[in-house]
């Protein structure tokens, strides 16, 4: 088991290296540079800026410099937020995005799971249809529609919740972003749980459990759900990585200082180090969560062993 985890972690290094290399050169292909403004700079000033940020050196040299600093976990200075280094920006924003993402994930898992199980237990009855219709809606309505509607109703008209702002993570400020972030996930989790639950309820081991006369709770939660949750787990791996690394839309609409916005801001401002930093962080999360999913599988499914 330890060997397996170690092997997986080691194999992540070449993957990360490839991702860093490809994105380093890809972002340089984009026309314009970090210091292109509507008002062009004096040649001498541009030269000095390029020197400060090592942009005057040959590209491969910059690449080696970047690899060197990233190996020391130093993501370099930001080209756009010139008062901050990328590490400082991430130290501030990543915990916020993770807190939001984790809350949304838990909410999605609990609510989506309950809805999915209830629908499966009442298959092809009104409750099932209602839940599935709601789930379809949840997936199809994008969050840039949901967020303004929720803030308009709960914030502007009723005045129950703040419309935006982070306010140091106060509970009332977190509610709307978490709910908006969780809604589509709730829908997906509910659909996945329902499908696999229906299958699990018909399987042999569940029928056996019923025959033993176990209580409904034991049959459904302990025996059926354990198997039924597997597809949800494999879906949640990448989904969690995406949720925890922030959402541009949610962060912009609610004015939250998370990491999601840096991806877009970095790309639009040609803030090379910021783009690279976010790419690396997202890649790490994806790799990590895929590993977690595989480990969870071993825990949940007796057929999977990594020894």
């Amino acid at each position, binding site marked *: 088991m330890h060997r397996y985890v170690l092997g997986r972690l080691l194999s992540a290094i070449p993957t990360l290296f490839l991702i860093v290399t490809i994105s380093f050169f890809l972002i340089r292909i984009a026309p314009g540079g970090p210091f*292109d403004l509507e008002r062009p700079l004096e040649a*001498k*000033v541009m030269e*000095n800026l390029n020197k400060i940020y090592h942009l005057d050196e040959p590209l491969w040299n910059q690449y080696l410099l970047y690899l060197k600093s990233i190996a020391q976990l130093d993501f370099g200075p930001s080209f756009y937020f010139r008062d901050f280094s990328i590490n400082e920006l991430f130290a501030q924003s990543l915990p916020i995005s993770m807190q939001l993402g984790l809350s949304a994930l838990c909410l999605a898992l609990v609510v989506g799971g309950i809805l999915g199980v209830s629908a499966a237990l009442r298959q092809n009855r009104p409750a099932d249809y209602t839940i599935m219709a709601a789930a379809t809606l949840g997936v199809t309505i994008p969050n840039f529609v949901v967020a303004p509607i929720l803030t308009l109703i709960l914030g502007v008209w009723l005045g129950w919740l*703040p419309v935006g702002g982070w306010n140091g993570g106060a509970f*009332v400020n977190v509610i709307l972003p978490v709910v908006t972030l969780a809604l589509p996930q709730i829908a997906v989790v509910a659909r996945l749980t329902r499908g696999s639950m229906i299958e699990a309820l018909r399987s042999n081991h569940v029928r056996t459990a019923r025959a033993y006369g176990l209580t409904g709770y034991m049959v459904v939660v302990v025996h059926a759900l354990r198997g039924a949750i597997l597809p949800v787990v494999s879906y949640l791996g990448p989904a969690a990585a995406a949720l925890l690394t922030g959402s541009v839309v949610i962060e912009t*609409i609610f004015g939250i*200082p998370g990491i999601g916005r840096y991806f877009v801001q970095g790309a639009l401002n040609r803030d090379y180090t910021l783009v690279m930093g976010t790419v690396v962080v997202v890649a790490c999360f994806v790799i990590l969560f895929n590993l977690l999913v595989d480990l969870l599988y071993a825990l949940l499914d007796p057929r999977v062993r990594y020894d």
Partner: protein
Amino acid sequence: MFKSMRVTALAAALMAATSLTAVAEVVYHRGNTADPETLDQHKTSTTYEAHILRDLYEGLVAYGADGKVIPGVATEWTISDDGTVYTFKLRDDAKWSNGDPVVAGDFVYSLRRIMTPDTGAKYANILYPIKNAEKVNKGELKPEEMGVKALDDHTLEISLEAPTPYFIEQLTHQTGLPVHPATVDAHGTDFVKPENIVTNGAFTLAEFVPNAHVKATKNPHFHDADNVNVDTIFFYPTEDRGAALRRFQAGELHTNNDAPTEQVAFMKENLGDQFRVAPYLGTYYYALNHEDEALSNPEVRQALSMAIDREFLADEIWGSTMVAGYSFVPPGIGNYGEPAFADYKDMPQIDREEKAIELLEKAGFSESNPLKLTINYNTSENHKNTAVAIADMWKPLGVEISMLNTDTKTHYAMLRDRQDFDVARAGWIGDYSDPQNFLFMVESDNTGFNYARYENPEYDALMDKAAGTIDLEKRAEILKQAEEMFMRDLPFIPLMYYGSMNLVSDKVSGFEDNLLNVHPTRFISISE
């Protein structure tokens, strides 16, 4: 569930209300387009950075609530007869936020710092009128050789290369704000961090959390601190204008310096006086490539300009947040009279279209032999709508338009690198209120801004002549001649004058509409 939530909300509101009366701290929640790239005044260039820096620092001169220049650290100044030497008297009671007095040497230090190439100041060229400044910035001279001298602690002398009637206006720009020398020497680029920063304005920096807020608190050492009503300001980066409007409606923002154009009708109806549109010192234009074969014909350019229904663009597409523009220099600008309007300004649109068709026919283009042009613009819903409308207005002339949109960086990199284009959208907001700040763009040696590649020695000669003229009225006449030439040759087709949009709560007073759209917080007060 809703009921209990309402009770909690009520309790929270009650608590907030009681704590407010206890402390009676005036907090101003100010929406401000975007985060500053940096709070180092010498490295900034945008207006949203200026809004913050103007509150943190006070320059030699400053802006009043009405956008007019008022004395800042300098209480009075004299100008030598030849217009090249400015002597500033500094006030005795000007202090930094740590209690140090503000002295002339601080300005000498600051002006040298911005011109030092190592600083990497993006906007240093705005202060090039100062003697030797350009050479210092290009690394040809040492910073000590700049024309800036402290005669004593309270007297500052600035020598210029040539008489520059708008020099005082230029000093209002954030690049003219002083830094605290000891702090910069001690902390280097980190002098902008809240724990290090020392400022001399009405406020001082407390926090900067990117994508959340910039918090500034009142500076007790400011010379006019007694008359400053606001204790704490929060500047929020309100990139999403729709979300900012909702926050404003919910009372979370006192003001916001932008509004969603697509909701103008809604705001006019529901917000009343709280939604403000005012003329702004800027022009929205299309640059024409004079190196293009068809566009090198002046009659073709005139025809294209004539056929554009600017009232339609301003009122229908931009919801009256812009004003139809028939000159390049916006009206109301300082040191100028009425701008040189196009002569077809008052002609009915139908006659203009007929005349335009005639002109293009003469040049050999018609619907059967169309003139093919591409409009380049930077991606934005309204830029697209504008381009589509103009393409439609040009269609009867026999002009066939294709469109190319790219993100802002790519668009301006294309213009800067002088790649091939026919027609390109651009806009210019004046840095200071003087026609020179608009007309200099198409001087033939202005490689950065002369997107049109317009080359006219007569025009350059007029601009040079204006630069050497001290008498303001004579200078205005010369500049007007230059603008007339501009409107005849049309390097750019001016389309609209910008308007500024502000959301201003009824609780806010001292937020006066003005041409420069500057609103220093020290003049703003908030009632509960």
